[in-house]
């Protein structure tokens, strides 16, 4: 029988400070970049035009740029997309020119005319056109915002029903951490934020919450089962007990998302990358953020499960935290 981390007995909570440091190191620079450069929003949100073309020869972006320049299309961004002979031309609407709904339409036309003039009509094929007027763009922005807001409210409500508020708060904080980390990740890789990527972030909210819930579920059960042990030990115990499940589930899910990253093509890649990272950060936060934060909350506002939370260590441990021994193996 092949088992991973069976009867594991790690003191996860002890490493919380390291975990905080690590996560701060990821999030803070990401957010500095975010505040300086913002995010790379797709034309769904900004309004604008996207034209994906396939050329007979891999002509290179410079040649395309030349063709567009010759036609006076200056602000377009040209990018190789997947295969060597596929390109995406993006023209985002500037804030100022948000008056003309129809202008996004004419841009798509102008791009294909410019390429006909520059490359020849039989040298390229338009694979995809997306033209989003500024009004629709603004609508989608507010929709995405609403989606994130609502999903938070609904999950909060669900947690409030299922758990005591201290558990719920810890789970929400851990999930917030995941959202921040994911935004930093998106910024690092400069992924295009489309509606589908927002979808990935929302799925991640569900997934990460689910992971936290599974650990907390076990914590609740163990709190009832082992009356002698304090919260610190129970948290560690519960994390260790659920560790095989975490490793396996995340292993299988990650296998599928990695398959999507590598094989599912260019359009889905940002989504798949975000999902892959989300699984990673969701697992991390359930263990290293949600559990210690629950300790802090129980310390601040002690509830009936707060036994030992004040001490923040296992029973019988020396007062200096760095030397705290690992939690005793549970008596069974």
């Amino acid at each position, binding site marked *: 029988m092949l088992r991973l981390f069976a009867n594991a007995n790690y003191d996860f909570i002890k490493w919380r400070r390291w975990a905080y440091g690590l996560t701060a190191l990821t999030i803070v620079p990401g957010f500095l970049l975010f505040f300086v450069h913002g995010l790379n929003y797709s034309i769904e949100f900004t309004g604008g035009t996207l034209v994906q073309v396939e050329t007979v020869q891999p002509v290179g972006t410079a040649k395309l740029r030349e063709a567009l320049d010759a036609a006076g299309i200056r602000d377009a961004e040209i990018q190789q997309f997947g295969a060597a002979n596929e390109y995406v031309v993006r023209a985002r609407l500037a804030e100022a020119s948000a008056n003309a709904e129809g202008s996004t339409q004419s841009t798509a036309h102008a791009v294909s005319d410019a390429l006909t003039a520059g490359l020849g009509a039989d040298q390229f094929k338009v694979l995809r056109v997306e033209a989003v007027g500024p009004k629709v763009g603004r609508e989608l922005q507010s*929709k995405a915002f609403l989606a994130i807001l609502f999903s938070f409210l609904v999950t909060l409500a669900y947690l409030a029903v299922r758990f005591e508020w201290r558990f719920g708060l810890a789970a929400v904080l851990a999930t917030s951490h995941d959202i921040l980390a994911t935004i930093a990740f998106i910024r690092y890789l400069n992924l295009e934020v489309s509606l589908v990527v927002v979808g990935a972030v929302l799925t991640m909210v*569900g997934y990460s919450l689910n992971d936290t819930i599974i650990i907390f579920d076990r914590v609740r059960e163990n709190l009832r089962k082992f009356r002698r042990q304090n919260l610190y030990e129970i948290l560690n115990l519960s994390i260790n007990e659920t560790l095989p499940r975490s490793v396996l589930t995340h292993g299988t899910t990650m296998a599928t998302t990695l*398959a999507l990253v590598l094989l599912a093509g260019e359009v889905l890649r940002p989504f798949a990358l975000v999902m892959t990272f989300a699984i990673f950060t969701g697992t991390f936060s359930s263990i290293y953020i949600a559990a210690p934060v629950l300790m802090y909350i129980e310390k601040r506002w002690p509830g009936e499960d707060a036994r030992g939370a004040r001490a923040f260590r296992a029973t019988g441990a020396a007062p200096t935290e760095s030397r705290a021994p690992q939690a005793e193996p549970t008596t069974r």
Partner: protein
Amino acid sequence: MRKIRSRLIMIGVLVVLSVLALMPRNVTQRVVDSTTGRMKDTTVRETPINFGLDLRGGMHLALEVDQSRGPVPDPAEAIRRAERVVRTRINEFGTTEPVVQIVGNNRLIVELPGEQDPARAKGIIQRTAFLEFRITDMKNEFRDAIPQIDGALRAAGVHAAGAAPASTVSQLFGGDSTKDKGKGKGKGKAAAADTSQANQAGALSSLLFQGSVPGEFLVPEEQVSAVDSLLARPDVKRLIPRGLDYKWGIEVESRGARSYRALYVVEEKPIITGDLLEKATARRDQMTNQSIVEFVLSRRGGRVFERETSRHINDFMAIILDGRVQGTPPVIKSQIGQRGQIELGSKPLQEANDLALVLRAGALPAPLVIVEERTIGPSLGKDSINDGIRAGIVGVILVVLIMVVFYRLSGVLAVLALTLYVLFTLAGLAGFGFTLTLPGLAGLVLSVGIAVDANVLIFERIREELQHGKLVRTAVDEGFTHAMTAIIDSNVSTALTAFILYLVGTGPVQGFAITLIIGIAASMITAVFVVRTFFMIWLQRRPDMVTLSV
């Protein structure tokens, strides 16, 4: 035993239902016959899964009432009427399974799967197709007002920008033998206007040349916008004789090295409009090789047209479509009844066909503007499907390997359940008529990973219970019961976010949310109910089993 049998029956029923839902069936499609160019119905067999436009290729348009050229009093009502018109047009245009629907209260969504010629489709949808017949300015009232307009412009400080060289003017008029063919009484005045024009080079008159038909003027192509802005000035508008309006011609005429566009001064009130039109067909005239749209008016329309044309014999009648005069206005020789035709000159027959189509379907109540467009070529869609399926297969193989390696025989049971899971999910999509999109495909692959989570939770729990020294049967029972709360919690939280995504998302994202929700439901059935049944059968056959292959 009886319990197992009823469980197996339930699973069997679900499998049969799923297979039925996924059975290829005959679908009737309206397509354009390639030989005759007419619409015909064909029947194809296909698996009843709706593929989104991003997978099958096609065109998605969101349209709104265009208010940029003047407010439309009731956009919601206008879009409702536009929906009917667009639906009629699209049905005749001939694509398979088009979608025309109103979203919110002022947006029209049009989806044309597999559309190969987006530009033409857009033309058909967006064309207002407002047809009207108006009598031209037969009394030359506008021409007589030109000197006054020039004067007003001079007073306002507008001077002829670059007066056309006199030679062009004379050449133009010299070549125009049919001038004032209809009524000669304005000729003297015209000559007077000509001289004043030559002498003073008025701001407007220097840009206009008398055309061959009363009320027709030719404007050099590069001056069209200048004339437009002059005529739009309020002080000029006041001087345009009451009851008259001006419309541009659709065609550009070349005379020598220069090209001209015709400006027609026509009566403000049309003698008849396209809403009285009943039929319209396109044909190619064998003699002149012209494309022609013939139309038949309704009975009432015929009466109106007859009355009006009999009053206007020998007058010229401009045929105006969407504000543009089509061709040169013909003279009315005798009264016209229900039948008439629009000549399109050398335009291809397809254009005439399209015009006939939009005329039949009726005019849009207001112009529409495209606020969102997504067009995906069929090859790209095919690539996406292939890539998605490849990624899915690889992902599933990895999941199967992990499960079998870790949980051995129990893992095999889970994998068996997983195949049922995929079957149920696809059947759910087909049975409820949901659409599979590219993100949906990703959701499907992702949900395979999530689906085994329930089994992992259960198996881990069974292992723990076995470790605690429980008997196999008890361990399995306890494993399932104890894992339930966690499974329900996790599935509910994922389903809630997916549900919100569905509520606020658009097309592709909704597809993702739907596959996720159906996937969660299917995984609850397979991972819990089906796997449990498998375990029951297993334990039934090996009641003495001491160690479990988990």
